[in-house]
C-alpha cells in the first residue's frame, strides 16, 4: 500500500480469465507520470489484456486499478477517458467509415464532452496531431481506403495529441519503418517532457531497450520481473520473456537434396500489394517469409492459397502450371493454409473438436448411402487428438474449451488431415504457450522430414531462425533479401527489416 502512494498509475493484484483460460494472474505494476514504462512479453503473455483492463475495455475478475489518486475495481472506457487514459490499440480500433480527420479528432471532442462539431475544427485538430508526429496524410480520405501503416499512424496521432495523463501503446511499431519508429520515439520523449506517463508494450527487445525507463516483464499472465530498464541486460529480458535459455537450438531437419520442386512461383504481381515475387520450395523444405505488418507478406501467402487475387505471374505446382484463383483450386493443387487469427478465421469455437478437425475434408466422410459416416468422423477426431497431442478428455468438447496452444493444434490438424504437399502457416505460434510452441515446431519438423514443404509467414524472428531452411524478407511488397537460416543471426534480420 505504501509503495502505491508515490506511484501515479498502476494495477494491484489483477486477475482475469476468459472462459477456461487464465489470462492474468495476480499482476501488479506501477507507472510514474514522468516515465516511459515498458510491458514486455511474448504474444499471449497477457500484455494486451492488461492494457484493456487499465483502459476499461475489460473488467478484471479481481484486483484494483489505480489512476492518480483514485482506485477502481473496474472501469468503463468512458471513465478511463475521463481519467486521462488514451490507448493505441494493437488492432488500431479505428472507424473505417469515417475520414482520417474525424478518426483523429473524435477523442478530442469526447474528452472535452463537446456537443457540437465543426468540419473546420475537425480538420484543425487532425492536422495538428499529424504535425506533432511529423506525418503527412490525406485527412479527407476514408480510413477504409488507407494502408495498414497509415492506420497505425492514425491511431498514434489520435492518442498523442490530447491532454492525456497516461498513454498506452500496444505494439505500436508493427507496421512502421525505422524512420517512422524514430519519429514515434521522439514523440514519446516529448510526451514525457510534458509529464504524461507512457506505457509501451512490445515484444521487440531492441525497441524496449531504446525507449523505456522502467520495465515489467510478463509471462503466461504473471509478472516475472520488473524494475529499472538499465538493470536489465538483453539476455535477461529475453530469458524472462520466454522462460528459456536463449540459445534455442535450431530444429530444422536436414534437407535432402532434391531437384524437384513442390512449388515454383515466378514474378507474382498484384499491384499495389506485391510485385515480382519469385521463389521455389523443394519437398521437405521450410521457407520462412517475414516483413513488417502491411508489407504484403500475408497477402502473398493468401494469394498462393487462392484467397487473394493475382494479376500476373506464374505458379507451378508439381511440374504443372496452375491457376490459383480460389481456395478450392489451391486445395486441389495440394496447398493448405493455416490463417493468422485462429479465433476468427481458423476455428469453429462452439463446435466440437472433432468437427473442427474434419472441417476441411468433410466430403471425404460421405458414406455409401450419401449420408455422413459418423463413426469415421469420430475416429478421425480421436486420431488427430492423439497424433498432435491435443490436451482434451473428449473429442466432443467444444474447441472453445481448449487453451491457445491446443486450439492452434486443432487448426493444424484439420489441414494435416488433408495431407497437403505444401503447408502455408501464417503466424503459427501466435498467442501460444512456450511448451506448445516447441511442440508445434516439432510437428512441422516431423512432417518436413516426411517430405511436406512449408511456407511459414511470421514476425517471430527467433522462431523462423529455429525452424526454417531459408528466410525471405518482404519490404513494400517485394523480396528485399533472401537469407540462409542455418548461419543467420537475429540482428542481421532485424536490420534488413527496417
Amino acid at each position, binding site marked *: 500500500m505504501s509503495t502505491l502512494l508515490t506511484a501515479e498509475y498502476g494495477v494491484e493484484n489483477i486477475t482475469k480469465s476468459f472462459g477456461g483460460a487464465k489470462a492474468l494472474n495476480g499482476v501488479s505494476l506501477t507507472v510514474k507520470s514522468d516515465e516511459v514504462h515498458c510491458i514486455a512479453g511474448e504474444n499471449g503473455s497477457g500484455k494486451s489484456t492488461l492494457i484493456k483492463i487499465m483502459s476499461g475495455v475489460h473488467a478484471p475478475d479481481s484486483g484494483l486499478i489505480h489512476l492518480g489518486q483514485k482506485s477502481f475495481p473496474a472501469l468503463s472506457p468512458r471513465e478511463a477517458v475521463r481519467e486521462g487514459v488514451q490507448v493505441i490499440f494493437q488492432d488500431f480500433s479505428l472507424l473505417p467509415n469515417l475520414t482520417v480527420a474525424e478518426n483523429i479528432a473524435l477523442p478530442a471532442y469526447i474528452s472535452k464532452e463537446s456537443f457540437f462539431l465543426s468540419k473546420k475544427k475537425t480538420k484543425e485538430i487532425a492536422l495538428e496531431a499529424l504535425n506533432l508526429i511529423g506525418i503527412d496524410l490525406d485527412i479527407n480520405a476514408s480510413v477504409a481506403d488507407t494502408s495498414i501503416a497509415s492506420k497505425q499512424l492514425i491511431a498514434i496521432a489520435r492518442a498523442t495529441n490530447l491532454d492525456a495523463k497516461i498513454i498506452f501503446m500496444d505494439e505500436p511499431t508493427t507496421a512502421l519503418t525505422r524512420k517512422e519508429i524514430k519519429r514515434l520515439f521522439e514523440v514519446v520523449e516529448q510526451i514525457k517532457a510534458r509529464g504524461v506517463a507512457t506505457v509501451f508494450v512490445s515484444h521487440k527487445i531492441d525497441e524496449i531497450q531504446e525507449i523505456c525507463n522502467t520495465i515489467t516483464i510478463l509471462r503466461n499472465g504473471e509478472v516475472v520481473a520488473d524494475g529499472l530498464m538499465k538493470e536489465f541486460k538483453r539476455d535477461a529480458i529475453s530469458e524472462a520473456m520466454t522462460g528459456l535459455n536463449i540459445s534455442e537450438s535450431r530444429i530444422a531437419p536436414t534437407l535432402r537434396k532434391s531437384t524437384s520442386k513442390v512449388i515454383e512461383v515466378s514474378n507474382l504481381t498484384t499491384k499495389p500489394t506485391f510485385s515480382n515475387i519469385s521463389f521455389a520450395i523443394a519437398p521437405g523444405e521450410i521457407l520462412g517469409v517475414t516483413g513488417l505488418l502491411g508489407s504484403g507478406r500475408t497477402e502473398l501467402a493468401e494469394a498462393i492459397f487462392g484467397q487473394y487475387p493475382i494479376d500476373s505471374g506464374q505458379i507451378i505446382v508439381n511440374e504443372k502450371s496452375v491457376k490459383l484463383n480460389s481456395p478450392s483450386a489451391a486445395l486441389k493443387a495440394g496447398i493448405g493454409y493455416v490463417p493468422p487469427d485462429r479465433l476468427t*478465421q*481458423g*476455428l469453429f469455437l462452439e*463446435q466440437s473438436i472433432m468437427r473442427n478437425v474434419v472441417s476441411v475434408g468433410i466430403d471425404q466422410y460421405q458414406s455409401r448411402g*450419401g*449420408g455422413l459416416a459418423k463413426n469415421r468422423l469420430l475416429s478421425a477426431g480421436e486420431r488427430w487428438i492423439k497424433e498432435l497431442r491435443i490436451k482434451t478428455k473428449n473429442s466432443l468438447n*467444444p474447441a472453445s474449451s481448449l487453451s491457445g496452444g491446443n486450439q492452434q493444434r486443432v487448426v493444424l490438424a484439420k489441414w494435416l488431415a488433408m495431407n497437403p504437399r505444401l503447408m502455408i502457416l501464417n503466424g503459427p505460434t501466435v498467442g501460444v504457450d512456450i511448451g506448445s510452441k516447441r511442440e508445434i515446431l516439432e510437428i512441422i519438423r516431423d512432417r518436413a522430414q516426411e517430405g511436406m514443404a512449408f511456407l511459414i509467414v511470421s514476425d517471430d524472428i527467433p522462431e523462423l531462425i529455429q525452424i526454417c531452411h531459408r528466410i525471405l524478407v518482404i519490404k513494400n511488397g517485394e523480396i528485399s533479401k533472401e537469407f540462409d537460416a542455418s548461419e543467420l543471426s537475429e540482428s542481421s534480420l532485424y536490420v534488413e527489416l527496417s
Partner: protein
Amino acid sequence: MNKNLAKFKTGLLADRKMTQLMAITGITFVFFSLVSRDIFFSSANFTSMAYQIPEIAILSIAVMLSMLTGGIDLSIVSISNAAALVAVWIMTSHMDDSGNAPLNWIVIACIAGIIVGLLAGAVNAILVASLNVTPILATLATMTLFNGIAIGLTDGVSISGLPEEFVRVGNGTFFGIPTPFVLMVGIGLAVGLLINRTTLGLKIFLVGTNRKAAQYSVMGDRKVIAWVYVISGLLSSFAGLIIASRTSSASPDFGSSYILLAIVIVVLGGINPNGGFGTVTGVILATTVLQMIASGFNALRFSQFFYLVSQGGVLIFVMILNVVLERRKVQRSIIRNLKS
C-alpha cells in the same frame, strides 16, 4: 464409460434446452387443460390444432434453416402464398362445375407450386450467396417483390373453392391422423436427416458458426448457403400447398403475421448450433406450444390481438432469458476461475 457418457450428453434428453422445452410444452398443456376444461381439453380442439400446426411448423423449419447459417429468410410467407396461388390457379382452371378436377391436373398444379418455391428460393440464393447481399435486406426485397407480383396478378383478390380431391388432403386423415400432420412429420424427418446425417448438414452448422472460418476451410460455403435458401423456398411451397388445401383458398396476403410467429418459434425452439435431432423436434414442440397458447386464448375468449401481444412478448422474454442465463454462466465461470 466416457464414450457412453458423451453419447448421453449429446442425446435428445440431455440437451438442456430440449428438456426445458418439453417442460414448457407440458406445463402449457396442463395449464390450459385445467383452466379451460371443456373447450381446450377436447378432441375437437386437439384435432383442430393438429390441422393448423403443420403449416406453421414447416414454415418455422424453413426459417430455422436460414437462421442456422447466420441469416434469415423473411420471404417464406410470400413464397408460400405465391406457390399456392399458382397451384390453385391451375387447379381451378381445370375444375368442372361440380368442384372436381382430374387428378393429374391437381398433381401438375402441385408440382408447379413446388417449382415456384424452388425458383423463388433460387432468387434468394443468388442474392445472398452469389451477390453477398445481407439476408435481411435480400429477403425483405424478395418478400416485397413476390408479394407484390401476387397482388398484381390477382388484384388482391383471393381464389377460393378448390377441387374436392385437393381439399380432402388438407382436411382428411391418414390412418386416423390428420394428413397435414403426417406430412409435417415426414418433412420434419427429412430435414432432420439432412442436417444431422449428411455432409451438407454438417456444413450448414459450420457455416453458421463461423462463416470466415468456413471460407478458409474450403467447404463451399456459398453453395451451402445457396442450398439453404432453395430448400427454404421449397419448404415454403409445401406449407403453401397445405394451407391452400386446408382453407380451400389461396390469397396473396394470407398469413402476414406468420413470419413473426415463425421467428418466435425458432427462438423458443432453441437453435442449437451443434445440432442434434433436438433442433427440428424443438421447432415442432415450440410450434405446438404456441398453437396451444393460441387455442387456449381462444377458448378463454381472449381477443386475438392478445395473442399477438403474447407472440411478441414470448419472443422478447425468451431472448432476455437467453441473455440473462448467458451472463450468469459467465459470472459463474469467473468465480470458478478465481477460486482455482
